[in-house]
């Protein structure tokens, strides 16, 4: 707390005398960006967005008698206070103590087994996007995977089709259960894998409605607004490095989210279900549940923003920077 106070003080810029309103536009624009001071307590939160960026989780791997590869996971849902902005606590719900939840990554045709333990005081579930039987859909009741407090359920299905998917809680009221933090990415690689790239990153876009009025107060990728900002934790890349971003939109309350890459273009694979890109662009729009894979490399070193091109979201936290080195 004291450290935040100090950094706040140092932020102060003195205003020159005799500056009339006419001169307002000319001064100080370059340094005046929406942002936040200080950092949240990642240790207390239990997760750090910088680490989440490359945290692909294949689970506990074994081989079934029929030769199929099995990936086993344990998810625990709990109520958790998260410091979403410095000094600002949000009563969140989490899978395994983090927002977004773990990024499940398996190959097409593998067996996925996820045990859900409910350590919270509300019923919750996991609803996976993909192809699976009705009783694995996590929607209606205990028999289809809605878990009462202190209860548990095992979701088990074959991973298909290949592509970039997501999972989220599907207990009513749905929007609230998702917005409070119960969502994550679910990657199914094609048999034999995707073509090799130099770096792979996960970005799950979402928002926080901290005062529960049905409107988001903050927006972000990977849980914490402004985390990848240039003054904080920019994502380091190298010139010429081929980068693949798994981009998922789990934003509630606002109909459309977007991603814009500065000073560059990317190949875009909607839902990741094809190995052929559908578009070469620098901006994509995604509605809730939509996702896609982006591939690009930087030609010049420098600082490059990426952010929602709904710029209001950007100024409320959904903004980040690639720091590209030679």
């Amino acid at each position, binding site marked *: *707390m004291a450290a*935040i*106070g100090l950094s*706040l*003080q140092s*932020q*102060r*810029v003195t*205003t020159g005398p005799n*500056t*009339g*309103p006419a*001169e*307002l*536009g000319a*001064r*100080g*624009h370059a340094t*005046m960006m*929406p*942002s*936040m*001071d200080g950092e949240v307590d990642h240790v207390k939160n239990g997760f750090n967005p910088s680490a989440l960026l490359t945290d692909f989780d294949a689970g506990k791997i074994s081989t079934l008698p029929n030769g199929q590869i099995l990936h086993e996971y344990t998810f625990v849902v709990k109520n958790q206070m998260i410091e979403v*902005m*410095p*000094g*600002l*606590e*949000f*009563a969140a719900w989490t899978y395994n103590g983090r927002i977004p939840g773990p990024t499940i990554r398996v190959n097409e045709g593998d067996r996925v087994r996820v045990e859900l333990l409910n350590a919270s005081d509300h019923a919750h579930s996991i609803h996976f996007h993909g192809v699976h039987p009705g009783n694995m859909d996590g929607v209606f009741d205990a028999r289809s995977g809605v878990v009462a407090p202190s209860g548990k359920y095992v979701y088990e299905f074959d991973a298909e089709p290949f592509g970039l998917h997501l999972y989220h809680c599907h207990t009513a009221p749905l929007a609230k259960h998702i917005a409070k933090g119960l969502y994550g990415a679910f990657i199914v690689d094609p048999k034999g894998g995707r073509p090799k790239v130099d770096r792979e990153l996960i970005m799950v876009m979402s928002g926080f409605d*901290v*005062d529960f009025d049905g409107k988001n*107060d*903050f927006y972000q990728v990977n849980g914490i*607004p*402004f985390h990848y900002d240039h003054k904080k934790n920019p994502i380091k890349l190298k010139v010429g490095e081929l980068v693949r971003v798994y981009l998922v939109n789990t934003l509630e309350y606002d109909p459309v989210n977007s991603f814009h890459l500065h000073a560059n273009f990317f190949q875009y694979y909607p839902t990741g279900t094809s190995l052929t890109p559908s578009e070469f662009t620098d901006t994509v729009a995604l509605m809730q549940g939509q996702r896609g894979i982006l591939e690009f490399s930087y030609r010049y070193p420098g600082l490059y923003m990426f952010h929602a091109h709904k710029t*209001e979201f950007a*100024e*409320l*936290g959904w903004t980040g920077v690639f720091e590209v080195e030679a």
Partner: protein
Amino acid sequence: MATDSGAPSKARAWLFFIAPIVVLAAVIALFVSTRGAGLNVEPAVPIETVQFGRTILRPGEIELHLRNTSPQPITISQVSINEAIWPYTISPGRIIPRLGKAVLTLNYVWVQSEAYEITVFTGNSIPFTASIPVATVTPNASAATLWKFTLIGIYVGIIPVILGMFWLPALRQLGSRAMLFLMAATVGLLIFLGIDAISEALEIGGELEDTFQATGLIAIGIVGTWLLLQAVSRRQETIGRSAAGQRMSLAAVIAVGIGLHNLGEGLAIGAAYAVGAAALGTFLVVGFIIQNITEGLGIVVPIAKDKPSLRTLAILGLIGGAPAILGAWVGGLVSSRALSVLFLAIGAGAVFQVAYAIGRKMVWTTKAADEMPVTAFAGVLAGMLVLYVTGIAIK
């Protein structure tokens, strides 16, 4: 014997006086120690309220004054302006004690005449929003701005009140019935002004946090002023002055009442200028000038038949008009909602008392008793209608 029993009975009286207080303290202690008699009175979520005070705009900077009116300390965490999270500084610190004040500063390049909304989040994720309807540089207390506010006060208060007094020679030509009509019109005028001031006070009071108890503040202002003026005018009467002296003292009391009312008016105009709202129309000032000319008339009606000196008239005019200057200063440079509510209530109490005093005088002194009801009715209504019609220009 008498002195022996005197001391113990005095002690007994004290004992009887103190005993309920001691028992009360015990009951409170019991309630607190049993956590509200078993009711869980602890709120699930802390109750937090923030009262915004002055907003000061300087080029490239917005300063927000706020007060914590919640039952416990609060912590300010994040601030957004027009849907963008913005860095800020806060003094003395981010933790504000109960009823403590803090000044929040944003380095923000605002644009002249545009609207802004600033949301302050506390550590418990509770947002509070302050609005700047029209952004303009806030006047500070320099000699130049003081003079500007003084000019506004002169235009709104002194000039119209004194102009109204110029009807005095014309009044002298009037018969007693016409005079009665004018007295009644003054009463109507004052009642209208009083009700208007109360409604204004209630409106501003509605924006106040509960801690300030706006309704109680209004009641104190009205009742207190009424009783004070009542006491003063009673004393004047019991001194045993001549009839002319009594008429003069009535004029003086009317002037004081109107002066207190104009204090509230100046306050409203000053506050409007300070937040840039009045920049949208000098219409407001023009309306007040037209309306206030009737106030000058009200002051001189009781002394129309006498021959007051110019000096006396000037003093009466100043008593009635000059408080508008003070009001404009306070409204423009201090801008405290609680103070505005109190001033308006004082104005209301003053004009009601004066209306009552004139009314009483009319009943007791008029000779044309038979004509009185109709003339008084027409006069009071005319007074109110004049203000209603001129008020259309202001609203």
